[in-house]
């Protein structure tokens, strides 16, 4: 063992760590998100949760969160794949329009989602004998809204990636979890501090997770939550698509070849 060579290896990765805030996400961002998510969930379980459907609520929340997470990650990873394969210039020097690329990605997301959700639900049923489709037909509009939210996050992340390139690629994985604690995925909004509740009620996802718990607890579909979430989603998705289109144009102004 040569201490100099070991230090060489150490510094090879240490220098990477120093390259920017996104490199520090493993040290700070992910632990913080985990502490927030699971800490708040634990507080809720310990202090308030009296329900016998606790497992079902948590696992349905998990499956629902997968819809948003997959929607978001699939959009940005599709873009990143073109970077990793040095194919971006090839792709956008064809007759392909940006809108066509976006539509193709969304079509693929839908197919992947059906597979992911079906597999997840089956796994929950086999492992825990719980049916996450207990929410009934409400699953479909809820899933559609969560998917829209995921695409919005995906296009917002892609806006940064198409402009700044590889150096911000971790945002593809990070962005969804910024909103997870506020979306009240595993616990009611009421468990959050006041300022966080204000943020939570601005997110379309919060209404879905709250709505899911209402359906599981009472069996009634909260139509008002659905419409509020729908309107917020339309605004957010519209904003995300506009942002992505603008950033793509700005990036083309600097040259797509620089991103490869």
């Amino acid at each position, binding site marked *: 063992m040569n201490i100099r060579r070991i230090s060489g290896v150490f510094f090879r990765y240490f220098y990477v760590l120093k390259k920017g805030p996104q490199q520090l996400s493993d040290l700070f961002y992910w632990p913080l998100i985990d502490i927030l998510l699971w800490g708040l969930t634990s507080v809720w379980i310990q202090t308030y949760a009296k329900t016998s459907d606790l497992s079902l609520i948590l696992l349905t929340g998990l499956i629902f969160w997968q819809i948003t997470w997959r929607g978001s990650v699939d959009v940005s990873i599709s873009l990143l794949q073109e970077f990793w394969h040095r194919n971006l*210039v090839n792709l*956008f*020097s*064809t*007759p392909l*329009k940006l809108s066509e690329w976006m539509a193709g990605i969304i079509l693929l997301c839908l197919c992947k989602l059906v597979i992911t959700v079906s597999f997840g639900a089956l796994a929950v049923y086999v492992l825990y004998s719980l049916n996450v489709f207990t929410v009934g037909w409400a699953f479909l509009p809820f899933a559609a809204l969560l998917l829209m939210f995921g695409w919005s996050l995906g296009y917002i992340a892609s806006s940064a990636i198409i402009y700044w390139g590889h150096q911000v690629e971790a945002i593809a994985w990070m962005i969804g979890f910024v909103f997870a604690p506020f979306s009240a995925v595993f616990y009611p909004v009421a468990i959050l501090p006041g300022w966080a509740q204000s943020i939570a009620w601005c997110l379309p996802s919060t209404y879905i997770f709250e709505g899911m718990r209402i359906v599981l607890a009472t069996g009634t579909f909260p139509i008002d939550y659905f419409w509020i979430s729908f309107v917020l989603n339309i605004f957010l998705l519209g904003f995300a698509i506009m942002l992505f289109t603008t950033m793509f144009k700005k990036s*083309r102004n600097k040259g797509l*070849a620089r991103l490869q």
Partner: protein
Amino acid sequence: MSIAVSVKKLKKVYKGKIPFTAVDEISFDVQEGEILGLLGPNGSGKTTTIQMLLGTLTPSSGSIEYFGKDLAHHRSEILSSVSFASTYTSLPYILTVAENLDFYGRLYGMKGKEITQKADPLLERFGILEKKKQPVSSLSAGQITRLMLVKAFFTDPRVILLDEPTASLDPNIAMEVCDFLSDRREKTGISILFTSHKMDEVAELCDRTIFLKEGKIIADDLPENLAKSISTFRLRLTIGDGMKRTVAIAENQGLPYSIEHRSIQFSLDEKSIPPFLNALMQAGVAYTSIQVQEPSLEDYFLKLVEKKL
């Protein structure tokens, strides 16, 4: 012959603390069926120009027209008859050769059978047909370059932009590629814009050559005319006896020279060769071989890089 590509006052300025002009109001045309070489040292603006011609980089000012249509307003329509290949890009390496061609064929509006019918003969011509079912990751750099050329040609483009397509190829394969380009032009009347650092290849293949330097066109002529504009010949002598006297005469006449074992090479004007050889003879220098090389496109390029033009 009509104009395939028309570039007018094309300019690209990268904004920043110190703005940098990569391409400075260049104008040129590419005729239908013409092979145009775009040359210049690194940083001269070749790749920037190609990227603007492809629509992957927005010009600061100026216009690009293909067959009379403005690229900025008819991008998708124009690019359906334009293709591109470069050594510096790649293809999704997880996908097989066939999957990549299927994907690109679809982007150009082709259907499954048509893709196979058009791609297979080209794959065979470039010697990679047996690799069709293999992932791109299993191909060598040279094979990927050939696949890029298949990708560029199988959509039957009317204009093709090639950014150093032979850079990673063995000389025999590079020669085959040049033959293919020449042949394709003869048969289909395709217009080709070609960048390369291999000057012999450019001189052989291109009908016309544009030299860029610091973002500006400094020459636009036939390759042979550009070479002729250089008056410096190379004279190589293998000295049997009198190397020191030869060097003294060269230094006395102010001729640049380089020595390698018993050989010495001079750069001089054509008119200076006879008096120089005469001077060597009078000094009793004995040489066993003599080689005179005419100026080439490479000499022109080297002069350009040395900023002597």
